[in-house]
């Protein structure tokens, strides 16, 4: 059993890389980009639990990101509640919404589930845009307080970077443990054959609902951090486009892989920064990348790179036969 050791090593290396980056960097722009990568990674991991492992497609995942951000933003600005309380309240709210939405929609499968979640995403988007008295409408919600402890702001700059990546590492750890457990095996079994999973005693409806709620709560966590980090949110960050972007992150990085989610989120956060000149063509660019990845790396970039590496190693072995 070498896998747990390799996993621990990977986590340790990753944590060390995060620490080194955090202490080494000075440029605030880099911190901002890396913080966004952290937020997107959290979102990609949450969607990956649902889509990559359990095989349930969601085209409305940005809605839970929005519910987290708006609920915590509204509670803290309109009611003056501390972000340390409004945040958890937002997570609970997102969990309840996910439960109520998941109850009927998770009876659907495949394209129908995608359509159902798409509809849910649209509804949330419409509410954020039009319930102006509470959400600020299309001009957004301003002046959201930062997460502070004793006057130190933990949600911006270097502190923000550390906080979000700490959340990412914690979520990686949580998902890693979950996937390699009784519940995780049931999740993956549902992906391959829901009928067979049911026939060996898995309460498939219950497992799907639980992972949907968990996934929504993690997405809402990203939303809470986003709202208090940036201080300003508008419906545009949580629309259908964002849901598609999240699906693209998961597919490009690789389904059912924690590191794939990290890679996909990083690429799709950095690319728009690099391609600001062609920002109008963002969707077209995603489409093209998705097509290319599907053609050349149908299992995602992480698996693609791994099999390319193994292929190269085997070729190397053949070229240098043992004496």
């Amino acid at each position: 059993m070498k896998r747990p050791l390799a996993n621990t090593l990977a986590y340790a290396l990753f944590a060390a890389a995060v620490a080194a980056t955090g202490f080494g960097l000075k440029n605030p722009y880099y911190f901002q980009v890396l913080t966004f990568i952290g937020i997107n990674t959290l979102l990609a991991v949450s969607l990956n639990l649902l889509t990559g492992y359990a095989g349930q497609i969601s085209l409305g995942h940005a809605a839970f990101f929005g519910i987290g951000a708006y609920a915590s933003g509204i509670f803290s600005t309109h009611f003056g509640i501390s972000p340390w309380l409004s945040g958890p309240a937002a997570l609970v709210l997102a969990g309840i919404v996910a439960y109520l939405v998941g109850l009927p929609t998770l009876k659907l499968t495949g394209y129908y589930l995608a359509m159902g979640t798409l509809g849910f995403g649209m509804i949330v988007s419409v509410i954020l845009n039009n319930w102006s008295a509470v959400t600020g409408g299309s001009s957004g919600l301003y002046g959201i307080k930062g997460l502070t402890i004793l006057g130190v702001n933990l949600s911006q700059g270097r502190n923000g970077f550390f906080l979000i990546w700490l959340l990412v590492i914690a979520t990686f750890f949580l998902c890693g443990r979950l996937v390699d457990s009784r519940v995780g095996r049931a999740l993956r079994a549902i992906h391959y054959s829901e009928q067979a999973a049911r026939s060996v005693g898995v309460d498939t409806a219950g497992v799907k609902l639980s992972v949907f709620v968990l996934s929504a709560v993690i997405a809402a966590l990203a939303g809470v951090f986003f709202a208090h980090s940036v201080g300003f949110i508008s419906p545009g960050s949580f629309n259908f486009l964002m849901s598609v972007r999240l699906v693209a992150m998961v597919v490009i990085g690789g389904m059912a892989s924690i590191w794939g989610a990290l890679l996909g989120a990083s690429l799709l956060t950095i690319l728009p920064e690099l391609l600001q000149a062609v920002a109008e063509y963002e969707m077209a660019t995603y489409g093209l990348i998705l097509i290319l990845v599907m053609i050349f790396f149908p299992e995602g970039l992480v698996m693609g790179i791994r099999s390319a590496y193994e292929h190269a190693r085997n070729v190397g072995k053949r070229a240098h036969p043992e004496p």
Partner: protein
Amino acid sequence: MNTHETSENGPILSLEKVSKAFGGVQAVRDVSFAVERGRIHAVIGPNGAGKTTLFNLVTGVYTPDAGRIVFKGRPIAGVPVHALVALGMGRTFQNVELFSGMSVLENVLVGRHCRTKAGFWGAVLKPASVRDEEGSARSFALSMLDFVGMAHAAERRAGDLPFGWQRMCEIARALAGEPELLLLDEPAAGLNASETRELASLILKIRDLGVTVLLVEHDMSLTMEISDRIAVLDQGALLAIGAPREIQADQRVIAAYLGA
């Protein structure tokens, strides 16, 4: 018929005047029979006789239009499929439905799902009780793989195995749930002659564990060889029921099979 048998003494499964139609087609009509504990029962019949429908009725996938099915003394109407498994009913599929991307051992571990308890927090926190449970689930799963002769393939990806091996692994997965009644849907389909012989001896071994076996089968030689009792379906109705020798001598069965 006495419907208040205790679950220990009466038949493990009984069908009472069960009927099921799809549109205008009466797939199963008025079928009644009982499955005694500790035996190998077979349901045979020509193509389109209603065997698969009957199988899906017993496993709770379909609900009968009329009549009822009683498992261990309780009617199964309204009991979800996964709860039937927890009650002690295991099954395999005609076309083998393994979780193809998971290892063989993981497949069998999923079969252990209904006999284990660890939930979300158990998975994340991994207290000693969960580690113990996981350990004993693993050794139980391995012992089931060993029982069907597939322990050597435990770490392989299930979808990569040859078809015959996949079928054995699927049986191991069903056994991991410790069923009292094991339902096999055409277990010999797609197997070659030597694999079918291995299957026959495996089914006998399963019965010797004390597990009741109900198989729906097309392959006559297999059923005649291992079954204690055979029910013959024809055009959705029960044509005959009895020991293999009686069935082989039954003129109506011969006629149905030869199409005379």
